[in-house]
Each structure stands twice: as C-alpha cells, then as structure tokens.
C-alpha cells in the first residue's frame, strides 16, 4: 500500500498551478485536501506523473456571502464551513449536509473542490450542488468556465473537468430566509459514506402550498440526482402527511440503486424513500 512514484510541485499562485497541470499532457493531478486522492494513490488506482499541491493557494480559501448567494473557494475545508456562523442563516441546508461529511481528522483537511472533483456518488456536497442548482467555476491555461452542477457529475468518480482544469469556486444561489428545507442521511456510523441521503427544499406560496421544490438524493445511484417525480408531487401541494407519503413512494420508485457489500438494491431503494420522507417532515415541521 505505497503510492507509485510521482513528482511534486507546490505552487503559490493559481496561474502557476494551471500552467503546471497544462505542462503534463493530462498526466498531472491536482492535490487538494488529499483525503480521497491519497488513498487512491495508495491503492494505485491513480498514478499521476506529477502532483500539483493546491494547499498554498490561499486565494482559494474564501467563503463569500452576497446577493449572488454563497461562494465557496475550492480550498475551503469542511472545518471552515463548520465554523462559519454566517452560513447557519445564509445556507442552512449546506451546514446540515456538511455535518455528515467524514470524520474529525478528515474534516480538518478535506476541501470543497477536492470533494467535487472526486465525485463520489455518496458525497454530501455533490448532492447539495445538484439539488441547489449550483455552479462550479473551473480554470485552465485556456481560460475560465462555469459548469452547472447538473452537467458536472457524469458518473462515479467522473466529472466534466478536463485533466488540465482546476475547480476554483462553488456558487450556491441565494437562499430566502423563509425557505423550508431538510437533510437526512443514513450511515451505520456518523461520518461514514451515506447508504442513502436526501437533500430538499421548497418555498411556500401565500396560499400555503409548496412551490419551487428541489429534491435530491445521494448514494443511491452513480451520481447525485434530482427527483423530478417527487418535486412534481410537492409543487402546488400543502405538505401534509398524505403528500409526504406519496413523495416517499415516488422517491423509492424513482431511484435505481445498485447492490454492494453494504446494502442490497432493494434496501437502498426503500432507504431513499425514507430519507425523503424524514427530510420532508423536518422541512414541514
């Protein structure tokens, strides 16, 4: 379990980092928190010729909150989100989700950009990004582009990023203070990978009915996904026990989980429904 040999560079500017990645014709990898990439190196699933360490890029450590929403620099660590009291009000769904991300020591190192680029299907942040219609900004020597979260995750550990691109920012759209939301996750041990998780929110119209419902699930497919069928049930309805029960059934029917060592497909399917049910109860409470 030792990594293959590689060269190492630790640039202090983004420009330098981008040109280092461009110089290796796709054989270089960016190293953010290293909490997923270093194990992949140890297992020799990844074998880059050059690691470009982003940890000295202080310019990517910001959390900005303004009229455009919440902007998280790619090198923001989980710990930093956890400690930013402004986020409790400006994006409570993000805060609730990040509470489930990994364990104490990993939270001190793991980053926003690293998690997104790794694209584990059970990752909480990926699920939040897709559910909230977030935008991911990436940069390369060729320039900068903005990728919608829905177009970003292509499959397990696969994203729309080119090998030369670095994520610089995740932007979550503005969050109205009256918004109803819920986040629920099931893992055998808090901090482990989700066997299923649901993130959802809706706004309430003056007549008391829900609108703008966004429902996302994690850990039950090859990438985080929104459940249009469940959103259709919620939009225009009062969120009461019958609606919640219908949403639960629709969620279980909509997902297509695969079986693995941790759970059968049928169990994960039922769990997806239960997570949506619990998150909705939390949202409506």
């Amino acid at each position, binding site marked *: 379990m030792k990594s293959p040999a590689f060269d*190492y560079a630790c640039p202090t500017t983004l420009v330098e980092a981008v040109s280092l990645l461009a110089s290796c014709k796709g054989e270089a990898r960016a190293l953010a928190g290293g909490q997923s990439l270093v194990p992949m190196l140890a*297992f020799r699933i990844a074998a880059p010729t050059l690691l470009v360490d982003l940890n000295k890029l202080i310019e990517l450590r910001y959390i900005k909150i303004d009229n455009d929403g919440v902007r998280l620099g790619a090198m923001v660590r989980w710990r930093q989100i956890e400690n930013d009291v402004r986020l409790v009000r400006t994006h409570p769904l993000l805060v609730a989700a990040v509470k489930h991300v990994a364990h104490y020591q*990993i939270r001190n190192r793991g980053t926003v950009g690293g998690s997104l680029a790794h694209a584990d299907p059970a990752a909480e942040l990926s699920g939040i990004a897709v559910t909230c219609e977030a935008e991911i900004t990436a940069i390369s020597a060729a320039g900068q582009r903005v990728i919608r979260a829905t177009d970003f995750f292509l499959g397990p550990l696969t994203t729309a990023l080119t090998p030369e691109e670095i994520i610089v920012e995740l932007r979550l759209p503005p969050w109205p203070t009256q918004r109803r939301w819920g986040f629920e996750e099931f893992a055998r041990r808090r901090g482990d990978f989700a066997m299923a998780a649901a993130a959802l929110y809706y706004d309430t119209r003056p007549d008391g009915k829900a609108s703008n419902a966004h429902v996302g699930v994690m850990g039950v497919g090859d990438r985080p996904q929104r459940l249009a069928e469940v959103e259709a049930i919620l939009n225009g309805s009062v969120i009461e026990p019958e609606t919640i029960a219908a949403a639960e059934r629709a969620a279980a029917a909509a997902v297509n989980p695969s079986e693995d060592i941790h759970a059968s497909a049928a169990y994960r399917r039922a769990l997806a429904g239960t997570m949506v049910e619990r998150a909705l109860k939390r949202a409506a409470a």
Partner: protein
Amino acid sequence: MSVPLHFEVNGKPVAIEVEPRLTLADCLRHRLRLTGTHVGCEHGVCGACTVLVDGDAVRACLMLAVQAEGAKVVTIEGLSHDAHLTPLQASFRKHHALQCGFCTPGMITTAHALLSEEPHCDAARVREVLSGNLCRCTGYVSIVEAVLAARVAYQKKDGPGA
C-alpha cells in the same frame, strides 16, 4: 527523486530529504524512528496514525511528508513524558481505556486536539469525534469515559500541563 523537507517535530527542527510519495506517517516512523504513530489501514479509515499538524488532528497516512514543509507536527511522543503520565494518559489507565494499545496513540492525539479546543465538550461530541478512530479490543465506552474525565485538566487556564 528526493526533495528537501524542513519542519518541526515535537518542538525540534527536522531537515531531511524525502521522496514525494512518502506519507507523513511513514516519514515519522521510518525516517525519524517515531514509532508511536501507528499505521493500521493506510487509507484513512482507522485513525491510528493521527498526529497534530499546526494544532489540528489529521491522519498522517493521508498527508504526504512534503506537505508538512514549514509545519509544526506533534506526535504521541510529543504528548508523553518519561517521568509520569499526563492527565489524559492517566485517565486512560484509570478507566481501562486500552488493552492492546494499537489504537491508543491515535485516540490520545485525537482526544488531546478535541479537549484543547473544546474542554467543555459533552459525551455526544466525544463520541462523534472519536468515531473516526477504530478500536478492536477495549470497546469505546471506557475510552469515552476516559476522555470525559480528562476534561477537567484541560479546563484549567494554563492548559492540561504535564
């Protein structure tokens, strides 16, 4: 190809050359002979290799040694004294919080980081934080009790002392 590395370990400056692929855990054990940092899973699951980097508890198997350039690293050796037990160690002994001892360095470093920052944390918080450290013999109840009982030492104004 080796690269130069300068950092501080348990208060002492270290200047060595390392291969970029060397993890901090292997660097501490094999190059610096600080074998108190245990290596269990080598992929960030067991917590046995936990050390403090600039005060934060991190998994030394998930950090490359080169990434410690300029950092202050504290290992279990840095949290121990030859002459007597620290309050946290004494609490582990008193509460039978170890048997084989393999996980203990990781438990102690993690608990030390927690109590240094949150000396008034409750049992739920201790459990949450220690959930990243696996123990395969003692069971966790006595470990949680030991950490909770050690809080008082960290609540003193001048820290846990030695």
